């Protein structure tokens, strides 16, 4: 017959049970009192915002339980702390980082404090994806598109966005050093094909490599995209290429009056935000440069109506266009899936760091009607494309322009467009 435990022993055991109960009840306690305060997570969006409504049908088919599981996982008040703890353990013990829950390996740690995005890193490491013949067909289409736009009085420029992993090679993690190369990406064959077909093109990769020794933050240490300064430099270099086309009146190249160093904002800090760590050598924000543009001559202010078609580098491009005050309206067709607009004629880059006036027009599928609306009244079209998005073949914009302004029966050589990537 076992002896009953002593009173101090029973007290100890009861105390431990109480501590365990407190642990289990912590989320309920947090919900009731707000202590500890919720910790915000970077890089995630919740799938379910409303508390799931019970209904016999949803309960019987099991969908209620699934929705409730997801709701609990997302809304539990200590989730931010738990995810941060998990990230910190994985980072500190195993050197692993994951951008956000369920987004595996979105981040790559470079030499501190530089972070890379996995998609662009993969693009710099993988072999070229597009066969030479398809690339040539694509460049041919873009050349024809330029001709058609020119006939409509619209200037056109392809802007090849930079891949951070191909520019800042000194900050790459040890395992990637010496493995990244232009030859491992579609970037070089793309630029070569554009030049062969005389498509006006700004190669920001080359530009950033040239400027990197003087301005190491053109793509910020914690950003994926070009920073405000980087996009501005690109726009400055784009203007002479547009003037060479002779479609538009002479556009002035505006000087940079001043570069203000300040804390990073928005997209310049997005990778650090996704780390979700308590502490690391990457945790401190890295200041960025914000250019102040010289005011344009009065007669050129608002002279441009621009359509930007492209991936997420387009946001920075819109900022640079606004900073110059040369544009009356800027429309941005994001992946040819959603529309955004900015009316930046009065924008003063000295007063504001970021472009706050960009607004969403809403979902805008790539139909002919939407194409007509977006192109209407524009005198400049910019196609902004990242190296790993080259295989998306401008998301069909070249074919749309051909349908609107060209001969729809004049079919270009065929190629297989890739799937739309809305991840970035």
């Amino acid at each position, binding site marked *: 017959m076992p002896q009953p435990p002593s009173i101090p022993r029973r007290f100890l*055991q009861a105390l431990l049970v109480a501590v365990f109960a407190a642990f289990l009840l912590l989320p309920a306690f947090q919900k009731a009192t707000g202590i500890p305060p919720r910790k915000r997570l970077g890089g995630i969006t919740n799938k379910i915002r409303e508390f799931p409504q019970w209904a016999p049908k949803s309960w019987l088919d099991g969908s209620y339980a699934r929705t409730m599981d997801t709701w609990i996982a997302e809304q539990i008040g200590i989730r931010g702390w738990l995810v941060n703890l*998990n990230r910190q*353990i994985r980072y500190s013990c195993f050197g692993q980082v994951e951008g956000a829950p369920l987004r595996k390996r979105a981040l790559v740690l470079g030499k501190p404090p530089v972070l890379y995005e996995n998609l662009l890193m993969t693009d710099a490491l993988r072999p070229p994806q597009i066969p030479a013949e398809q690339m040539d067909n694509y460049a041919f289409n873009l050349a024809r598109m330029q001709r058609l736009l020119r006939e409509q009085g619209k200037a056109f420029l392809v802007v090849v966005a930079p891949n951070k992993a191909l520019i800042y090679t000194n900050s790459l993690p040890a395992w990637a050093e010496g493995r990244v190369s232009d030859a491992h990406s579609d970037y070089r064959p793309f630029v070569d094909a554009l030049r062969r077909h005389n498509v006006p093109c700004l190669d920001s990769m080359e530009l950033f490599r040239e400027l990197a020794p003087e301005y190491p933050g053109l793509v910020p240490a914690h950003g994926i995209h070009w920073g405000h300064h980087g996009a501005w430099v690109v726009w400055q270099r784009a203007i002479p290429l547009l003037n060479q086309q002779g479609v538009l009146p002479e556009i002035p190249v505006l000087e940079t009056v001043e570069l203000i160093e300040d804390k990073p904002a928005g997209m310049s800090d997005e990778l650090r935000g996704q780390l979700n760590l308590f502490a690391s050598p990457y945790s401190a924000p890295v200041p960025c440069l914000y250019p102040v543009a010289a005011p344009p001559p009065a007669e050129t202010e608002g002279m441009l109506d621009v359509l930007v078609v492209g991936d997420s580098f387009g946001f920075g491009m819109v900022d640079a266009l606004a900073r110059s005050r040369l544009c009356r309206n800027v429309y941005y067709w994001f992946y040819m899936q959603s529309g955004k607009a900015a009316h930046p004629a009065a924008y003063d880059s000295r007063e504001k760091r970021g472009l706050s006036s960009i607004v969403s027009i809403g979902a805008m599928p790539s139909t002919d009607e939407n194409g007509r609306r977006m192109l209407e009244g524009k005198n400049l079209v910019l196609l902004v494309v990242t190296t790993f998005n080259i295989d998306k073949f401008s998301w069909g914009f070249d074919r749309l322009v051909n349908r609107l302004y060209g001969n729809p029966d004049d079919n270009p050589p065929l190629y297989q467009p890739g799937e739309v990537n809305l991840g970035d």
Partner: protein
Amino acid sequence: MVFSSLTFLFCFLPATLLVYFLTPPRWRNIPALLASLVFFAWGAPKFVFVLIATCFADYHASRWIVPGRLPPSRRRGILAAALALDLGLLLFFKYANFFVAQSWDILELFGLPPFPWKTIVLPIGISFFTFQKVSYLVDVYRGTAQPAHSAGRHLLYIALFPQLIAGPIVRYHDVALQLANRSTTSGLFLDGLWRFAIGLAKKVFFANTFARVANAIFDAQPFDLTSPQAWVGLLAYSFQLYCDFAGYSDMAIGLGRMMGFRFLENFDFPYSSAGIGEFWRRWHISLGRFMMEYLYVPLGGNRGGGHKTIRNLWLVFLASGFWHGANWTFVLWGIWHGTLISIEKLIGKERLERIPRPVRVAATFLMVILGWVLFRSKDAHHASRFYRILFGIHEGGAGLATFPEILCDSSLWLAAAIAIPLSFAAAFRLDRFLPRDPEDPDALPPRSVLFRFVLSLLILVVAASELSASGFNPFIYFQF
């Protein structure tokens, strides 16, 4: 609902334990039963009615099959009818799709079109609770246990949530008394917490880590792999399966203890076995005991001499294989183990023991993991290709591109460095240095109690953080 989910940890478990312990001891079966039904209905709402109805039928049948109540032939008839109902449901839900698919193949051979069929959804845990139903009926029929005092108590035995979905398969006579009367102490509760935390660690830290490798290898086309990659994948799967299933069993045993139940062990260092017979005394012990007691012995066991013993063993392993899943791979897996154990019987224990134990352990481990190929492959064709790559019979492909990256994962190496030596600890009698479950948890030294508690809480916090950061996290044995 799975134990390794935030819904279970932070909603179901605290609510259940709170209500359970606030209820006077004599009424505690009520919250335990209600919680179990909610637990089951969370994953399989429709089938909860099937479960309740069949339990009700079993309970009433059991009252008539008590020895002496009716003439033997009528008792046998009632038992047969009740067993037919339970096993018939298992056959229908688990195997109907399989037999229909086989019929379609046969019809196709004769150029006939397939007949229409709507896929049957498998109720979660049906294989486990059907065996418990069989155990209840047979125990009552044999007189080794009295019928349950009430239909509710019988339903609680079948549906008790810690072991409802993936075992251990608790025999009725092992828990009949506990269902009527059990004591809960803070010592036993903390002991249960410790066991639950150990199980959670096995699942979240070890099984899930090995799963990353195993899934990458087994989800690839076998002929794309190289032979070393296939071996690494097989080893990873072997330890994933062990940590996953043993982890679930630990959690079930731990939860049971928190509520005052003491379930029998389900694993005892199976990879330390020096023979297939020993392996089956250490792996999924509750299934082995069930098969022994309710199938092998009624078939005649080893009473009829060598040939009949081997025939009975074959039948048991064939049934065990088929119980695991409606797929030819599981049948082949059962045949594989039936063959191995028959060979072992034919060679004889004395002759085998002349071989040094480490060699026997290594050979047993090799045989067991070769069987896991069948267990993991999606069909026999896939398994056959995998075997050819393993043994270099087929040249193999260029190899999995992500394999070097997988091997660079230091968390995998850490998991392997801990799990592999521990799995083989009993082979070298090192298990005596590992903490064993105390007979009386209240007699543990306070320092041990404190140490186990702090470690348990640490595991729970870190595991909860891992679960928060990852997605759905099912157990392998849920599918069976």
